[in-house]
């Protein structure tokens, strides 16, 4: 593992390659040249819109108990409510909750958890990574030792134990996801920043007695953005999957705010008895979301850094 590694780091050759017309434009053009990625992007935007506007477009507020009736419990797709006559296109769960609405709200929670944890983890990881790269020496080796130690443990194990300790809760899941993810960003940012730091202009900036903070965030940080984006697209899909897994294992979000993972877990008990729709449909929604993100992510990675990974 790392040990005061301030030398011998090969420069990543991706991010430097952005030259001719505006980087954003160029990026967009290259991205759009792959039709599958465009499909993924459209799908993802659609899913995100559903999640954001769920309260407006869902046929039912699945968590307003006054709207539910257990008399409607376990209806098959296409059956209608005994009370209101409303049609349940994807059936109902055992509480009489419309699965279409439950999935929309579930998406909302899944994406919310992933997005917030992503934002926090990137922020924390970036600050720590840039700090490590800028100061180097003991600080760097200490931080990277922690990062390495943490990355050597499977994320699922760390998150599972954390949540077993903390109990269920949307905030707690977010905390657990931030804790298992920050290290990836810290490592990514550090290795880009450390290359940059050795360049002359930083020395120049230092000799001008610019403040440390200014150098770190004005000069080092911008160069770390492309690899960050690449890592983030991989990580957000993993975060969604991890949250779903934790909720499935019963340590994730609480029953009152079910994410897709929890909806699947609730339906799992009924899978064998033939009520497949309670778990299968939320599962399909989850899978589409993850695939859409991965398609976009794969392309982003190819465009930003063709040789980063296989």
């Amino acid at each position, binding site marked *: 593992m790392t040990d005061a590694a301030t030398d011998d780091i090969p420069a990543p050759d991706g991010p430097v390659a952005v030259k001719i017309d505006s980087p954003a434009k160029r990026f967009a053009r290259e991205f759009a040249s792959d039709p599958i990625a465009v499909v993924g992007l459209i799908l993802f935007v659609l899913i995100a819109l559903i999640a954001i506007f769920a309260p407006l477009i869902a046929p039912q507020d699945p968590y307003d*108990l006054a709207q539910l009736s*257990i008399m409607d419990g376990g209806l098959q797709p296409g059956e209608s409510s005994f009370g209101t006559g409303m049609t349940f296109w994807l059936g109902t769960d055992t*509480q009489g909750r419309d699965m279409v609405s439950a999935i929309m709200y579930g998406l909302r929670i899944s994406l919310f958890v992933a997005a917030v944890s992503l934002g926090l983890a990137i922020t924390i990881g970036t600050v720590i990574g840039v700090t490590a790269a800028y100061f180097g020496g003991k600080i760097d080796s200490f931080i990277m030792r922690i990062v390495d130690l943490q990355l050597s443990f499977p994320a699922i194990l760390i998150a599972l134990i954390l949540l077993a300790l903390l109990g269920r809760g949307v905030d707690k899941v977010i905390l657990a996801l931030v804790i298992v993810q920050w290290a990836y960003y810290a490592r990514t940012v550090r290795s880009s920043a450390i290359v940059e730091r050795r360049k002359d202009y930083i020395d120049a900036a230092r000799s001008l007695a610019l403040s440390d903070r200014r150098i770190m965030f004005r000069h080092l940080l911008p160069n770390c953005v492309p690899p960050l984006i690449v890592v983030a697209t991989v990580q957000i899909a993993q975060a969604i999957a991890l949250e779903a897994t934790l909720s499935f294992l019963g340590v994730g979000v609480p029953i009152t705010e079910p994410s897709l993972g929890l909806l699947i877990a609730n339906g799992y008990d009924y899978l064998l*008895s033939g009520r497949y729709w309670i778990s299968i449909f939320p599962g399909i929604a989850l899978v589409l979301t993850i695939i859409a993100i991965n398609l976009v992510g794969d392309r982003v990675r190819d465009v930003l850094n063709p040789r980063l990974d296989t």
Partner: protein
Amino acid sequence: MMRASAIPILAGLAAATVPPVAAQDLSVGLKSEATSIDPQYHSLSTNNQVLQTIFEPLTSQNAVQELEPLLATSWEATDDTTWRFELRDDVTFHDGTPFTANDVIYTFCRVPMVQNSPSSFTLYMSSITSMTAEDDHTLIMETAEPNPLLPTDIVVLPILSAKALGGGDDITFAPNGECEGMGDVPQSPAFNDPEIAVGTGPYTFESWNRGNSLTLARYDDYWDGTPDWETVTLRPITSDGPRVASLLAGDVDMIENPPIQDVPRIEGEGFKVVSSLSNRIIYLHMFQDPEAEAPGISSPNGENPLLDPRVREAISLSINREAIAERIMGGYAEPAGELLPPPMFGTSGRDVDPYDPERAKELLAEAGYEDGFTVTLGAPNDRYINDEQIAQAIAQMLAQIGVTVNVDAMTASQFFSRRNNQDFPLWLAGWGAASGEMSSPLRSLVASWNPEAGLGTTNPGRYSNSEVDGLIVEAMATLDDAERESLLQEAETIALDEYGIIPLHYEVTVWAMAPELSYEPRRDQYTLVSEIKPAE
């Protein structure tokens, strides 16, 4: 639209494989595994039901929890604090030694000497102050206070062999593990050795492959006729789906607690399903301590509405117990009006509260809560049958009368800790009356909190009524059954009249088995191997 029944569920497995039960071998899928072979290690029904096939107690309970003789032929209270037990004289242990009163004394002496016990059996014998063998098959027990439940308490204390465990021939009893002549007492892990795990039961202990199977063999010299099966294999299959699948695939001949939603399918595949009302009541309990601030509750006037009996009654009347039993429990539950299903000992046949949301709203208005209030409902999500769903259904129903309920469901370990810490204003839980009589729920759930006396131990809501307490204490010291029963009935009626606790339903226990078997379903929810018979 595809109908659920159109899916050929497990058809391939089941069609070919409803197997003829191999005449002499029996295999049973259990919901949980025993934690030890030592019958004195862990006071837990999953242990008791398995170990009582190897070891037998003096008295036992039949399928409806009536007391019956087993190793004792008869018993009587010669005065308020003295009991005389006559023991069978035709019983031998699996190692061939005869069963005598000395073994009983050894057994009772060992209880407090078991180390590391997570839940000790001392509870059931701590009232005994002296035990003496009048002769080899007559035993005198004395208690400090009158204890009418002594013959029931000792049902969970099956008899060990003094000789196999290295005890002397003439053991002198003293309370608190200070008996003499005990020798070197083997601890629980030693029972993994069939030479140590020697009882008088119909089956002998063969081997235990943890997490996978526990094997028992027929004891040919059993005193009560030859047992039905040559070998018995008990498999712990903790997940519901796989347990059902194992039965359908013929891996096991019988399973306990199939999930209710799977019962129609199991029956459809030609298997036999039996069920019985259990001694387990599912109830709502409420925070009723006027001195303390109630957690998790907010009302317009800032008071704890649950202190008002009218509010508690309104909660009870708002619950559609029939709908829960039918829709959520698939018919495998019975709406409850008492803490124990009638006609068990101490029940009064009280009516189930009707579903009357209109009246409930009136009561709330009378109490000054016409705009309702907000309350948290705590519940476990993996302890009772469909517990979390019941909690959610209750939240729905209370929403109809204007009470906003936030369901807080969690795994049982967290739930029990938090409940005992008084974290919930309202919670859903269950109580199984091991003794099969009303004193059990009354003492633990209803009596005022008094842990030193062992009263109100599961009454974190602090419901308290001194009249009820008095009746319970009096009943516990009354040896006359009829008199005791009426005291218990009176105590229960008072507590239920003021809605100190709200009964929801009695769980129904289900067993599913190959058509070649029969099992008399039991109130105590036990799966007793010795009672599984070939169908006539």
